[in-house]
Structures are given as C-alpha cells and as structure tokens.
C-alpha cells in the first residue's frame, strides 16, 4: 500500500495570492494513497525541506508530491531532500502550480481547481513511479577544439592552462582565423598581428596543446565524456616535423601565379607557400592543384633546394581516430558572396572590394605592403566610398535578415585609418543606422565623424558605373537631405553581411548540435546557457554562434572553456536514468525510432528468440544506448507497437496523469 505525502507551497504570496493553498492541501489529503497533506510558506527553504525529510522518515512515505514551482527551478532541490531521507529521489514528483497556474490566472476559484487537478495528476503518477538509479560513465580527459581562430585558440589556452590536453583541429595551414587577415582592430586600433601572433605562439608552445592543421573532422561518435572522433589530415606534401620554414622553396618555385586565398586573390602566391610570415605552425605546404610536379611530373625544384629534405610529393590524405571528453566548436564566420548584389558592380570592377579585401589592401602583409593602392592600376585612391549593410538587414530575400553586428564598427575603423594615413583622401560612408553599443564604440564612431571628418551619409548606393579609367561613377540617395548624389570614386568598399562557415552545417549534423535558420549554432538557452549547445558535452565559442567582434569572441571562448573544464575535471559522469528502453518481444524492427532519434542513441541488432515450439527465430530489434539517450521521448511517440518506453515517463504514467486531469 502506497503512503504518499503532499506538500503545498505558498511561495510567499506568489501562489497563495491566487490559489487557496489550504483548500488544495485539504482536498489532496482525501486522495487514495495520500496519508499526509499540508501547506507551507516556503517549501524550498531549509525548514521546508526539513519538513519533507522529517515526514518521509516519520511516516515511512513511499512517494512525495510537492506542489510549487516549475521542476526546472527546484526539482533538484527536493529530490536531494528525498535522497537524504532515504527515499529514492525518483519517487518524488512536482506539480507546477506557480508558472502554470497562479501566475497565469486571475480567478481564485478556477486557479484553486486547477491546482487540485495538477496535484492529482502528480499523485496518480507517483503511484506508478519506480525507484531509478542513474548509471555512470568515465570522462576522457582530453578536449577537441574545432576551428583555430581567436575563439578556438583562447578556449584551448584556457583548457590547457587548467591542466587538460587539447587538440585544435584547423582546416587551414595556420591557426589564427579571420584575425590574421585584419590590419588594425577597433576600438583601440592596436594592430591585429601584435595581439594575435603572441597567442598563436603560446598555443604552439603549450605542452598541453596539439595543433592539427590542414585537417577536418570526419566523423563523430559517442556521447558526453566519451566522444570518438575521426580526423582527416589533408596531404601537406611537406613533412611538418622536418620543415624549418626557411622559405627557400618559395623563392625557387616557378609556379608564381597561384591564387592566394589569404590575400583574397588580390595578389598571387607560389604553389608551395607559407600563408604569411607569422604563420603557426611555420611550415610550408603545397597547393597540389597548381604544383607542376604533382600535376605534370615536371619540376621538383623545391625538393632539390630544401635543406631539410622535407618535401614529399607522394603525401596522401590520412585518417586518425581519437577520443575526447568535451568538444568546443569555433568554426567562425565568413562574408557572404556578393553575387546577388550586382548593383554595386563587384563583379565588373576590380576597384569594388569587400571590407575584408580592404583589410588586405591596408595590411603590411598585403599586396600593397601597407600602402593602399587601387587594384586596377596601383594608383593611390583619392576618393573612397564605403557602403554598409550589403546583404545585412535585408528582407528582399537576396541577403540575410539579421544585422551582422560588426560592420558599423569596422567601417568606422577603415574610414578613420584611411583619413589618418592619407589626409588628402575624401571618405564617404553610406549607412542605414550606425549601431555602436559596445564599450567605447560610440565614441570611436564619433571620432571618425568629428575628428577625421568622414562624410557619413544616411542612405544607400543605387548604381555603380565603372569607367574605362578605373574610376567609379556612383549614384546614391541621401535620405536626410532628400537628394540624389553623384560621386566619382576611386574605390568602393562593401561591408558584406557575415554568414557561418560553409562547413558548419555538415559539422552540426555530425555533432547532432542544433542550428537556427541561418545556420548559426544555437545555444542551449539564449540567456542562461549561452555557451552550451543543446547536445551534452558540446560547447560553442566565437562567431560560429552569431556575428561577433573580438572582445565578445574572447569572452565567450573563455566561458566555453570553463564549462568544458567543469566537465573534464569530473572522473565520472552521472547519467540521466530517465532514458528509453525497448521491449524486445514487442519490437518489430521498423526503424521509426532510430529515424526520429536526434542523438543517434538507437541501433539495431539481430537477436535469436526461442519460440514456443522450440525453434529459434532471428529478429531485428531496437536497442538504446542509455549513455547517449537524452530521454526526449520522441521514440516512444512514434513506436507503432508500443515497445519503446521511457523510464520515469512511461506510457502508463503519462496516461495515469491524463486520466487524473480529465476524469
């Protein structure tokens, strides 16, 4: 015979102002199986908890129902109390009479009736509850960071400093990400390299960090604490252990007209190359598509001159399998392609560039070696026009609906740096709104307008006509003056919207991590769990989660690292016992459960079954990996034969609750 105790909380006046708590306690006291029912001002206080503990002990309660707030708030608190009293914590249930009742109703009578109904449902469930014990699994004390931009580097350094091993898997030949391409950084205008390269070197030298460059994640299996990851190393054609980065091969390479993605094709580089002088690791790699030796079997100069004997034309892609306890995703962002924005003539004139290209034009490691020169003829530009919001805040379907967040600030930076270095240059900025809410950001923008006399114009460019001398005839609207403007410019710089890296989507599928409609990784809770992905053990850092500047990126990376450290520091992880399980005798092997499982927790196996006539039948049946299952219940809903069920939320328990509510 069940002995159930019911405890009704006032929550100060949060509940009791709308719900007649005395009446709820009284009514519930008459339910079959309920041996004790009371109300109390604050159930979550230590005296409230002690009340529960005392009554469990005193009356030998076999089940407890707390009528109070959402289980998200205090389920853990009360389950701990039950545990203390020696009652299996899964024999305690909560009825949410605050968020789902007192807070949303005004009529006291109705709210009281609803509270009674909710409490009854909980009692009906507790009647069927069984004791559950969470399993535990080991934690592999190594972290994987995917993407070696400033976000990945910062997260890796923090985790490594805490004493855990970290691998940074980076697709390119060097770590550093977008910041390596930037000249100076807002709002303080310190040079990007000066703040970035020391960190890159720190990563390389840290005893706990391994840099896995020119590599990508191939497959991911397993679960929090226990991920098995296959990493694909792309052929480098140069042995990184032997290469000293001396650069002799680059001087001799005859293939000198190879497009250089680091300089966004504004200048060529050689087939064997080092991305830029401060690259980490400082080793050469060969662009196989453009190497004469690899393509045509003729040349081999680099191998001849290499003093370290590091060149290997036969190098092949390879796969390595590794185990990790935690994964940090930091794959960053990229400017969108401007293909849909032909009114700016990006495809029709070399003097129309993106903001990232402008960074390269300004940079000391760029094609102009620090002097801004027009791509068409190498002349010094005298009139430069900037257009913001190209593809951002765009509801026409050509671009992105969101604000890319960083463009107002970097455009102000570009305008200011240009005026500072070349005071004879006229600079125009066309803007939609100037958004500058960061620390010191508005002052920064105002400095561009007030001190550097940049012409800020609210409006937009409608048409760009390139001329034979390379100049651009720009037609634009000034919305404040209600005027048409005609500007003859030397250079037009477009602040393209930012989007997630193209590899983010397939990666999210491998991780079973979720994304929003624009393919940004989504966090577990937008306010309270901003660096955790909904998939346990996967954390988010930097611009892969949404456009961010460097300060925001670094802050988020640190937060993600601390969450990962919190996981890695544990020896064992307690699982969630409320997981799915399948009744093999009822399962008909239809695969519907496996198809809906978002976590990949369900597999199928062929099993022998003894039949009543003593023959053996081989049947395909579902099996759930309890360590991977998150207990979402999707499988129990689709299962046509009723074989799939969830511990703690069985079909029977749910129906009992529904019956109690409706009958």
């Amino acid at each position, binding site marked *: 015979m069940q002995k159930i105790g019911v405890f009704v909380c006032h929550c100060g006046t949060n509940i009791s102002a709308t719900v007649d708590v005395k009446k709820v306690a009284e009514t519930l006291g008459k339910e079959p199986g309920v041996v004790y029912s009371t109300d109390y001002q604050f159930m979550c206080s230590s005296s409230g908890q002690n009340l529960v503990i005392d009554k469990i002990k005193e009356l030998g309660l076999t089940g407890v129902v707390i009528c109070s707030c959402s289980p998200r708030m205090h389920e853990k608190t009360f389950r701990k109390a039950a545990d203390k009293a020696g009652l299996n914590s899964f024999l305690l249930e909560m009825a949410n009479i605050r968020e789902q009742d007192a807070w949303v109703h005004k009529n006291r009578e109705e709210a009281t009736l609803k509270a009674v109904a909710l409490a009854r449902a909980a009692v009906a469930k507790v009647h069927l509850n069984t004791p559950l014990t969470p399993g535990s699994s080991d934690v592999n004390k190594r972290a994987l960071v995917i993407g070696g931009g400033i976000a990945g580097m910062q997260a890796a350094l923090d985790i490594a400093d805490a004493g855990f091993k970290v691998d940074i898997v980076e697709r390119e030949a060097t770590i550093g990400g977008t910041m390596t391409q930037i000249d100076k950084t807002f709002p303080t205008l310190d040079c990007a390299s000066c703040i970035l390269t020391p960190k890159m070197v720190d990563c390389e030298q840290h005893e706990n960090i391994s840099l896995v460059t020119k590599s990508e994640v191939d497959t991911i299996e397993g679960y929090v604490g226990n991920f098995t990851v296959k990493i694909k190393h792309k052929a480098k054609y140069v042995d990184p252990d032997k290469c000293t980065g001396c650069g002799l091969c680059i001087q001799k390479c005859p293939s000198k007209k190879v497009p250089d993605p680091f300089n966004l094709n504004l200048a060529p580089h050689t087939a064997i190359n080092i991305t830029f002088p401060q690259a980490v690791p400082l080793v050469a790699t060969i662009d196989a598509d453009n190497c004469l030796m690899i393509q045509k079997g003729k040349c081999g100069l680099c191998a001849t001159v290499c003093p370290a004997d590091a060149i290997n034309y036969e190098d092949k892609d390879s796969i390595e399998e590794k185990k990790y306890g935690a994964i940090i995703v930091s794959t960053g962002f990229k400017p969108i392609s401007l293909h849909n924005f032909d009114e700016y*003539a990006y495809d029709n004139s070399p003097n129309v560039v993106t903001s990232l290209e402008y960074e390269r034009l300004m940079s000391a490691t760029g094609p102009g070696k620090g002097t801004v020169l027009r791509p068409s003829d190498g002349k010094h530009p005298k009139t430069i026009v900037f257009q913001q919001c190209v593809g951002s805040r765009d509801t026409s379907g050509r671009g992105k609906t969101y604000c890319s967040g960083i463009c107002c600030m970097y455009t102000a930076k570009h305008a200011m740096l240009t005026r500072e270095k070349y005071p004879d240059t006229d600079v125009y900025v066309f803007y939609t709104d100037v958004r500058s809410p960061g620390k010191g950001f508005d002052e920064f923008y105002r400095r561009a307008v007030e001190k550097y006399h940049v012409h800020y114009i609210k409006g937009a460019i409608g048409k760009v*006509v390139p001329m034979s001398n390379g100049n651009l*005839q720009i037609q634009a609207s000034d919305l404040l003056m209600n005027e048409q403007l005609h500007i003859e410019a030397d250079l037009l710089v477009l602040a393209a919207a930012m989007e997630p890296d193209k590899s983010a989507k397939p990666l999210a599928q491998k991780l079973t991590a979720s994304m929003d409609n624009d393919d940004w990784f989504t966090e577990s809770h937008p306010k309270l769990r901003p660096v955790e992905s909904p998939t346990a053990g996967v954390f988010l850092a930097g611009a892969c989660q949404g456009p961010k500047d460097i300060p925001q990126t670094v802050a988020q990376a640190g937060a993600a690292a601390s969450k990962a450290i919190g996981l890695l520091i544990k020896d064992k992880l307690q699982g969630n016992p409320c997981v799915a399980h399948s009744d093999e005798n009822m399962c008909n092997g239809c695969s519907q459960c496996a198809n809906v499982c978002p976590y990949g927790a369900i597999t199928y196996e062929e099993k022998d079954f003894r039949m009543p006539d003593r023959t053996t039948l081989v049947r395909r049946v579902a099996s759930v990996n309890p360590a991977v299952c998150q207990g979402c219940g999707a499988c129990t809903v689709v299962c046509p034969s009723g074989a799939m069920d969830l511990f703690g939320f069985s079909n029977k328990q749910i129906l009992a609750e529904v019956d109690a509510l409706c009958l």
Partner: protein
Amino acid sequence: MVYSYYPGCTLKNTAKELDECGRISAEALGFTLEEITDWQCCGGQYTSGKDEIVTKLSSVRALDDAKKSEQDLVTLCSACYNVIKQTNNAMIEDSDMQMKVNNYLKLDEPYKGETSVYHFLEVLRDKVGFDKVKEAVKAPLKGKKVGAYYGCLLLRPGKVLQFDDPENPKIMEDFIKALGGTPVIYNMRNECCGGYTILEDTDAAGRNTSKILLNAEDMGADFLITACPLCQYNLMQNSLSEKTPIYYFTELLAHALGLREKECFK
C-alpha cells in the same frame, strides 16, 4: 521546331529590320517563326495599369492561339515580351484576373496560362544553344567591340520574367561572343532609355540616353545592339554625331550568319 510568333506593331513599321532579320536567321538556325493570325496590339502602352482587364485581352488572345497550335510563343520586341509574359503570369497567379478575362473572351476552353513565352534570345540560349549559333556563323565579327543595350523591359520585373540577372545580365554578351565579336561590358546597359517620357519631356529622356551612350563609348564600344524598338529610337535621337550607332540584335545575327550583309559590321 515551329514557334508561334508574335511580331507586334512596331515590327511591321519602323522596326522592320528587327522582324525580317529575325525570321531569316531563325530559318538558318533550324526553327520557324509562324506568325499568329489576327494578332492585335499587345497592350504595350498600358503595362503599368495592373488592374486593367481590357488591356490584357489581346495578349491573352495571342497566348490562347499559341496554346491551340500547341506551340510556345516567341517575340522579338522587348516590350511585347514584357507585356505578354507578365500577362501570362497574371493569368496563372491571379485567379480574379483569370476569371474576368475568361468571362470577357468566352473562349471554347478557358485560358489559364498554359503557353510558355520566350524571347528570341532565350530561344537562342536555351533551345538552340549559343554553341550551335557559333557553329552556324559564316562571317564572324572579328575585332568588333559590341555593347549590348538591354534597357529595362527584357529584365524587369526579374522574378516574373526570369530572363537574366537584372543587375548584371549576360545573355546578349554571350550572344555577341557566339557571333565572334567582343562584348563590351558597361554598367549603364540596363538603365532606362527614358521610354515614353520622350514625348513629354525630351530633355529628361535625353539626359538618360546621353549617360548610357557616354558610358558605352567610354568603355570602348564601336556600336550597340538592342532588342527594343523604343530604346533604339530614343538612343538614336541622342546619338550625337552618330559616334555610337545602335542596331537591332537580329541585324547583327543575320549578318554573321551570312544572310544579309551590312557594311558597318565588316
């Protein structure tokens, strides 16, 4: 392949060259333009009258005629193309319009937008293929720098016409390449020629066409080609000292195919 051909009024008057060169070139390239009998004005002057039923009727008659002959409808004039294709689209998407037009016309079977509408250039690109056009060229336009002038009617509204990228089209450039010429890209090529404002405010139209011509000249075009009689008229009015003449694209085609030689293309 036989197409239902809708010439339109201008092609029977001032733009005879556009029509005749188009027809003979079609034959040389293996397709026939079969003129729709009893066609009437496409409604060209009234394109912007969206809610006007009467102006849609003649277009729908032509479209229905093509439907009955089970042929696609082809035009050479940009304006006719624009009007007929937009009307056809309205007959598919706007059920109210469809009902009203059919009530007026009392056809044997209601017309619901079944006919496909193509511009001659689309036939060259998508049905014949520019590579085939290139093979048929007898007098390639070696060394000729040709600017394509699109105007607006071929390109916009882009979502309905789906002819080419309205901001950076390339179909005429590919056409010029197929004929052995060198296309000159100048960004004013899709700007308005002034259209009918030339009747009301000649100066305004003149300002527009001057900008177009100056840009084409500056980028090095020897001459321009167009598919629109109205554009051609407006640009000719402003073609100062005949420095950059403007021809119909079919004249160029007929010349390159060796069908109708023209001194100026040699």
